[in-house]
């Protein structure tokens, strides 16, 4: 399993000028998070690589999840390097549940051996420990994998730090007009590092969506003078036009088995949701209503979708089985604008855009109790995307008039801004697996 991870640490074959790196600022903290001490890893045979500070990356990942509260480096009461140096009683008095120790060792072959150990203070023993081999280029990836191991071991939830995110950036010319604007489809690590460009276009790019195995992106591009849905392999760069019917071709969403795309087409008069079978390009119509039906999101069982419909006059969320001409069940009633659903990996919750007046915020709906709660402050929050670990939601927001990405923990208490130094960034999609 570990080996597979290491060999799987590939680079996108698409060469590109590195865009400005995402910068993550924690804007609000969470008092109830689990205390953990990440001891700065010891570097042997090499100076610490500042851009690949493994223990700092782990600390940042765990903090971002909202479920952990890593001790600031300057507040560490001790810096053990081996299990035998850990003084359990001291850490217990300090109120620490877990500590992480580790090392990065430069080997004769020029590669790095990265070791980490997760130590449970109450149990007074090591509960997890692995060794990885990495190059200077894969050190950050290894750090994210370690974050996932720790996160999963303690919370029982799947990890999501070692995968990738995709998003769209737009740079406009100096005059701020649309002419001369450049749209890019970009892929980066989940903390915004290592951004790479998959597509550059003078026309809009929209709605990137990861295939379940993280190998392909579906998206909408207007490069050929109309909305057109493509899928593109991130490793080979090979891409296919999947849908270019007359009218809308939008909102692609991969079925959980990766064999189909739910898409929005208006070829039959007005926007409805169809399922495109990727093997034979056959289409199956799911909704048939004169209003706008769009933004399908699959439930994990692949049998139903949540979508946006204006059939009640204003956009609201509906749940409908994808087969058998099922009747849609209306899910949202509060407020005049509820749209753009993202279903959690466990199928229990739906994150969506909730608009009231001129304020658009991210909310979560509990599919069982049908109760909802608002997580963000707005005023122009959109494109919510559940992280595969179910603990955070990525979304697009405005900060001082600039389009940025932000993350919020599902309890709403941990908020972070991911900001580019230039340009607008929008429409985040978080891969469930790293290909």
């Amino acid at each position, binding site marked *: 399993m570990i080996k597979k991870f290491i060999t799987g640490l590939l680079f996108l074959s698409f060469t590109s000028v590195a865009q400005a790196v995402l910068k993550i600022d924690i804007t609000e903290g969470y008092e109830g998070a689990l205390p953990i001490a990440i001891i700065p890893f010891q570097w042997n045979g090499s100076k610490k690589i500042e851009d690949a500070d493994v223990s700092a990356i782990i600390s940042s990942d765990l903090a971002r999840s909202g479920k952990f509260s890593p001790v600031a480096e300057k507040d560490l009461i001790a810096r053990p390097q081996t299990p035998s140096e850990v003084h359990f009683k001291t850490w217990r008095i300090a109120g620490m549940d877990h500590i992480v120790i580790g090392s990065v060792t430069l080997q004769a072959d020029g590669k790095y051996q990265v070791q980490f150990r997760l130590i449970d203070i109450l149990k007074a023993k090591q509960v997890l420990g692995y060794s990885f081999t990495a190059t200077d280029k894969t050190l950050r990836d290894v750090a994210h994998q370690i974050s996932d191991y720790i996160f999963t071991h303690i919370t029982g939830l799947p990890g999501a730090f070692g995968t990738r995110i995709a998003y769209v950036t737009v740079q*406009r010319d100096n005059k*701020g*007009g*649309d002419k001369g604007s450049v749209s890019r489809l970009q892929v980066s690590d989940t903390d915004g590092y290592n951004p790479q460009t998959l597509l550059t276009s003078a026309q*809009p790019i*929209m*709605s990137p969506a990861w295939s379940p195995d993280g190998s392909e992106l579906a998206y909408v591009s*207007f490069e050929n*003078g*109309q*909305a057109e849905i493509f899928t593109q392999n991130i490793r080979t760069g090979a891409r296919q036009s999947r849908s270019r019917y007359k*009218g*809308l071709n*939008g*909102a692609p969403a991969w079925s959980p088995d990766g064999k189909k795309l739910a898409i*929005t087409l*208006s070829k039959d*008069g*007005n*926007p409805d949701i169809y399922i495109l079978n990727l093997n034979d390009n056959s289409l199956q119509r799911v909704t048939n209503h*004169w209003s*706008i039906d*769009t*933004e399908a999101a699959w439930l994990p069982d692949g049998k139903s979708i949540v979508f*946006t419909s*204006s059939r009640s006059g*204003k*956009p609201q969320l509906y749940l409908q089985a994808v087969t058998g001409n099922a009747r849609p069940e209306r899910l949202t009633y509060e407020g005049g*604008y509820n*749209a*753009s659903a993202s279903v959690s990996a466990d199928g229990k919750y739906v994150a969506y*855009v909730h*608009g009231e007046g*001129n304020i*658009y915020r991210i909310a979560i709906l509990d599919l069982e109790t049908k109760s909802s709660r608002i997580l963000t402050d707005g005023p*122009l929050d*959109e*494109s919510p995307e559940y992280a595969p670990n179910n603990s955070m939601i990525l979304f697009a927001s*405005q900060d001082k*008039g600039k389009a940025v990405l932000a993350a919020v923990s599902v309890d709403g208490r941990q908020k972070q801004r991911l900001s580019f130094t230039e340009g607008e960034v*929008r*429409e985040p999609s978080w891969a469930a697996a790293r290909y």
Partner: protein
Amino acid sequence: MKKLLLISVLALSVVACSQATKPDSEDIAGSIDMQEAGGATAGTIEGAEGAGGTELEGGKLVSYEENAINDPNNVLSQKVVYFAFDSNKVGDDYVELVKHHGRYLAFNANARVRLEGHADERGTREYNVALAEARARAVKQLMLYEGAGNDQIAVISYGEEKPVAFGHDEESMSLNRRVEIVYQ
């Protein structure tokens, strides 16, 4: 056909100030109510046939000659239709304008136009693409009623992806809720 159309042009330009027509706001693809409001009745005008009819309207020429769309003094020089928030209804202020363009297409069978639908930044991107397409289709429908041919009019929706104003105030957003009439 052409004669009939031009006659209605002139009649409508007379009543343009008094809420001439009212599109049905509920059904985007459905029928547009073509009854002239205010009891105005359309009369015939001698010698109005042909594409050369010229009438003044609000300081702008009304003419459907081939080059009329390039004449800054012609009513057809205005090529943007603005909309209310979350609405695809062609507002009363723009019905006449859209009809003029529809009649231009009817008179110039070789003319081709692309209707580009846009939305402001509020709400979700894919919903806005759908909304902006509905706006463009509403404009197209009005043009069809004026005699334009279905194959003369292409519709594309850009949603909120191509704003012309970049502020977050109502003034900027109102400029972005639009359909651009782009002759090819």
